[in-house]
């Protein structure tokens, strides 16, 4: 009896880290219908094993790859779905709504919600925060002819994300990182004398 209890406890202990890894992992549908309709489609599934393998082959001499190397140790998965169409709004909104529902779960918070009526673009950036740290990043971007979902899982260091600027063209989004700036902002210039 005691042995059984010990085995159950050991099994539970082994299962806890595995559950932790799945936290922040969005269930992305197969989008089989979209793939058939799209003129171009990109599906990237880089799990922790593939990520480890990919990181071994990154060349630090290449600035883009050197920037990606910084993420290697902290990320556990990168998943992307991108579909491009020849006509406007050829994708059903229900597909996006299904993913939005997952982002209503506790822990997830929307950090950017940008909508342009002029260009008909809608970009939402979500972050899963646990223990004061970002554990997962999700981007849902819908444009008239393109639909993109990004899910990056792992210990996401927002400072490192900022460091990608200039390499992958990642802009500074002004997301709070919880760290104090190194220097105080410069004082405003004095008003011009009349």
């Amino acid at each position, binding site marked *: 009896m005691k042995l059984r209890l010990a085995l159950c406890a050991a099994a539970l202990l082994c299962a806890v880290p595995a559950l932790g890894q799945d936290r922040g992992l969005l269930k992305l549908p197969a989008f089989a219908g979209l793939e058939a309709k799209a003129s171009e489609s990109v599906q990237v599934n880089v799990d922790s094993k593939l990520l480890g393998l990919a990181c071994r082959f990154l060349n630090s001499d290449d600035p883009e790859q050197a920037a990606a190397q910084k993420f290697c140790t902290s990320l556990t998965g990168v998943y992307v779905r991108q579909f491009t169409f020849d006509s406007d709004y050829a994708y059903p909104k229900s597909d996006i709504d299904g993913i939005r529902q997952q982002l209503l779960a506790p822990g997830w918070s929307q950090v950017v919600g940008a909508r342009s009526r002029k260009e008909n673009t809608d970009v939402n950036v979500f972050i899963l925060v646990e223990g004061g740290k970002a554990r997962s990043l999700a981007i849902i971007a819908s444009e008239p002819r393109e639909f993109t979902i990004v899910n990056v899982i792992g210990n996401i260091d927002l400072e490192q*994300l900022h460091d990608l600027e200039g390499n992958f063209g990642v802009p500074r989004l002004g997301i709070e990182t919880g760290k104090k700036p190194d220097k105080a902002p410069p004082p405003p210039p004095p008003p011009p004398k009349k």
Partner: protein
Amino acid sequence: MSQDIENQLRRALRPVDPSAGFAERVMRALPESTPRAAPVVALRSAARPNLWRRLSTPAALAASLVVAVLLGQQAGRQQVEREQRAGLAARAELLQALRITSKKLDLAYQAVNRPAPAPPPAEENPS
């Protein structure tokens, strides 16, 4: 009746000691050349299997070892090539994913930092 047959058989098949000088008579009856030729043939036929037997096992082991090493090297090379192909493909996927991520973050950045549209000009009072 049957008892008689059994007794006759027992008598006929009973062990009998050979007569004196039987062994000498048999040896004398054998041809003289047979004992001389036999050892030569025996020696030749015995020498070859001994050498072959002595060398065949180590030779087989050595050949197996060489084949195993060659097969191991080949398998190792194939494994490295497979791993390299998978690694390069994974790297390409990762870089593509990061490029898409950065592009979409840039889109969000542009949308957030886009200047607000100017308010419509106030209509002039006709009066």
